[in-house]
């Protein structure tokens, strides 16, 4: 048999990626123009614009950063009042080797801005905790990971790594596997001190300090809260995190773009697929490709199913905390069915790793829509049951109404997003504000509630489940578009197996992709999706090689838990437990 005849070229005709080409975002022009407009409005000489980015980006003088942030927040035309993220990046070849990056969002204009500060190894940055309370923890994280010191920060110590840790883990010269052992002698040193902001002076009774966690049934895993009590009243609270710091960001730097996907699963493990989607979309944005329509719709449907599952876990665990155990069993039943559907698609129950950069790992099973329809029919029954059990129950109402209130202004200043922000009456939802994977084509509403207490958060979550069901019903009615589920680009997606087995060219592409990985153009990008708890953003920096240079996840839980200490001050312990559940803190995402 002649062997050569059966080889044929596969139909990809697009260009091969040239390694180390610069990344040109699709919206670079409007972002440049908008950046100029912002600079004119502000009239601030301390900012120089970085052009060609996916959002208006400025390089700010180190000493002026706090002022610039304040101006951006207080300018009535710009109103960048929602702090999204503050993180570092390390470029060891540069003289001022660190970038501290700030990202803000303007609820008024629905736009984002990125500010960068260059910092040398021995420099300090003025703290911006005075402008945004949220940046307290974010700056501590930058310090922990990079060793950048913030001048004037009230509590400049490690946040994620333990106290016996030496060095700064996200520096490029830090060995990813270098561990430092924490002994029991060291543990005594990590007693957190009560944040002076929260402690009040006068006490009626003897002061008691009580430690909750990190292994406490009510703290859902690995959260630790130290409260100071005056009688029954909490007069000060501090949270200690890092008990699940699994080094997501460092691990991403040592793996290829596709291999990061299982790691993203494990951020918010209650809605893993949304993390997959967010990361894949960020890398796709960097690559300038778009997944096929069929893949996008499956991504959307599974995201909505898992948003429901996420809310189910939150609600049922929260109800267990306040003593309503039956609901747990009622709500876990539909969740198990959602897991069943996911397992039928991807092969794994909880952490599916189903999405790939460029599409999906495999096509959905042929009866996907029927099964989805069965679930959509089934879910409201269970939700109704639980509503019947709790809404009109006086005990429940008194446990949740007026508990752990956070005002709208505080919530924004703390960087809240997602259901907790909407429970304060701010209708910000990424799916509406900057729609992705086709959310704009569905008819649905963003639910908000007034009050900002635990009850309001319950209301929003229940209504969101119903809205998700609405989206799902429409998606099922439309049917899945025909076509492939992954892009036909051998530099991104593995060629079909039937071709790999039988054609030499595909086999070579296959080898090359496994060995050399995806190599996006050089540049940085940020993409945000609406996770179960709020805006889940991925900031990806590529240096043209197969491993990401830097992956930063913007964890929505982080600011939520940061504000928790303030929210429970003045409450009692049982209320604090109920409030903690209603925030839905997922440790995997909180500590990344």
């Amino acid at each position, binding site marked *: 048999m002649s062997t050569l005849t059966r080889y044929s070229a596969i139909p990809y005709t697009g260009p091969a990626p040239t390694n180390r080409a610069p990344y040109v975002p699709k919206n670079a022009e409007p972002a440049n123009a908008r950046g100029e407009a912002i600079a004119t409005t502000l009239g601030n000489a301390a900012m120089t614009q970085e052009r060609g980015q996916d959002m208006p980006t400025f390089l700010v003088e180190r000493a002026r950063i706090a002022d610039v942030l304040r101006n951006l927040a207080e300018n009535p035309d710009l109103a960048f009042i929602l702090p999204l993220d503050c993180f570092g990046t390390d470029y060891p070849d540069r003289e001022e080797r660190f970038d501290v990056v700030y990202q803000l969002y303007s609820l008024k204009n629905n736009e984002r801005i990125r500010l960068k500060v260059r910092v040398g190894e021995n420099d300090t940055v003025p703290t911006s905790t005075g402008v945004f309370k949220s940046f307290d923890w974010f700056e501590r994280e930058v310090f922990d990971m990079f060793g950048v010191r913030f001048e004037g920060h009230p509590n400049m110590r490690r946040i994620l790594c*333990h106290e016996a840790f030496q060095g700064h883990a996200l520096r490029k010269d830090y060995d990813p596997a270098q561990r430092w052992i*924490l002994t029991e002698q060291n*543990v005594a040193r990590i007693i957190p001190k009560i944040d002076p902001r929260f402690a009040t002076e006068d006490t009626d009774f003897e002061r008691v300090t009580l430690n909750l966690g990190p292994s406490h049934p009510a703290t859902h895993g690995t959260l630790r809260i130290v409260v100071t009590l005056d009688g029954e009243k909490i007069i000060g609270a501090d949270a200690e995190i890092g*008990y699940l710091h699994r080094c997501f960001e460092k691990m991403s730097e040592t793996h290829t773009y596709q291999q990061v996907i299982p790691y993203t699963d494990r951020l918010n493990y209650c809605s*893993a697929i949304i993390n997959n989607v967010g990361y894949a979309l960020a890398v796709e944005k960097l690559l300038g490709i778009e997944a096929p329509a069929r893949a996008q719709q499956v991504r959307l449907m599974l995201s909505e199913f898992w948003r429901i599952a996420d809310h189910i*876990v939150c609600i049922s665990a929260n109800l267990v905390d306040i003593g309503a155990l039956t609901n747990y069993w009622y709500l*876990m039943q539909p969740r198990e069915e959602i897991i069943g559907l996911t397992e039928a698609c991807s092969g794994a129950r*909880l952490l599916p790793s189903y999405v790939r950069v460029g599409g999906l790992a495999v096509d959905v099973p042929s009866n996907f829509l029927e099964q989805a329809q069965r679930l959509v029919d089934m879910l409201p029954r269970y939700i109704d049951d639980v509503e019947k059990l709790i809404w009109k129950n006086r005990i429940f109402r008194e446990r949740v109404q007026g508990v752990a209130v956070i005002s709208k202004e505080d919530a924004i200043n703390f960087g809240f997003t997602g259901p907790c922000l909407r429970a304060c009456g701010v209708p910000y939802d990424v799916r509406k504000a900057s729609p992705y994977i086709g959310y704009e084509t569905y008819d649905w509403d963003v639910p908000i509630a007034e009050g900002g207490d635990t009850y309001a958060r319950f209301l929003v979550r229940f209504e969101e489940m119903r809205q998700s069901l609405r989206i799902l019903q429409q998606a099922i009615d439309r049917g899945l578009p025909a076509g492939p589920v992954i892009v036909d680009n051998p530099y991104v997606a593995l060629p079909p197996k039937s071709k790999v087995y039988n054609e030499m060219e595909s086999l070579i592409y296959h080898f090359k992709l496994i060995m050399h990985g995806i190599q996006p153009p050089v540049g940085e990008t940020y993409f945000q999706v609406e996770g179960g708890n709020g805006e889940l953003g991925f900031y990806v920096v590529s240096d043209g090689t197969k491993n990401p240079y830097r992956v930063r996840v913007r964890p929505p839980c982080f600011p939520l838990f940061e504000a928790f200490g303030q929210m429970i001050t003045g409450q009692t312990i049982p209320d604090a437990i109920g409030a903690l559940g209603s925030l839905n803190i997922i*440790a995997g995402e909180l500590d990344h």
Partner: protein
Amino acid sequence: MPIEKIDNPNSIIGRKLNQLPGSGPEKGIQTLPGESERDIADFAGGSYLTTTVDTMVNWARSNSLWPFPFGTACCAIEFMSMVGSHYDVSRFGAEVVRFSPRQADLLLVEGTIVDKMGPVLKKIYDQMPEPRYVIAMGACATSGGFYRAYHVMQGIDEIIPVDIWVPGCPPTPDGLMYGILKLKEKIDRGEIRRS
């Protein structure tokens, strides 16, 4: 035993009846070393014809494991599924989830143990009364999994002894139940680690 397929109109999950743990078509391959064929009755705790006090004690121990779920991460969510309505672990007498180590005799380590958490886990283990058993659930607890990282413990056997290792990431609830059954079997055999 004939295999029966069960259809439940309320659920999209398929089921089948009458299959031994560690058997079935998926076990057509060689079993893992150390596995042997057993009767369902042994697993479900049905063999209570005891002859010596020791066996009696072991039987009692193995059928009332009170777990302390040391759940830290994703595996804890699968543990929630296991105590949930579909898998209802109370059928093995292991439903009394104790959140106090003093009242528990089975430490279920679910999820990643990072270095910061290590001393906490050690302390909890030390507080448990004898006899105590440890099941390490999932890749992270057993070996660190794919987190070969600067802040993740590479397996909890660095600090405490482990009786049963359950691979998976996360292990399915049935996989974890199989682990619990294996532990029961180990206790029934009288292999108790004292440390």
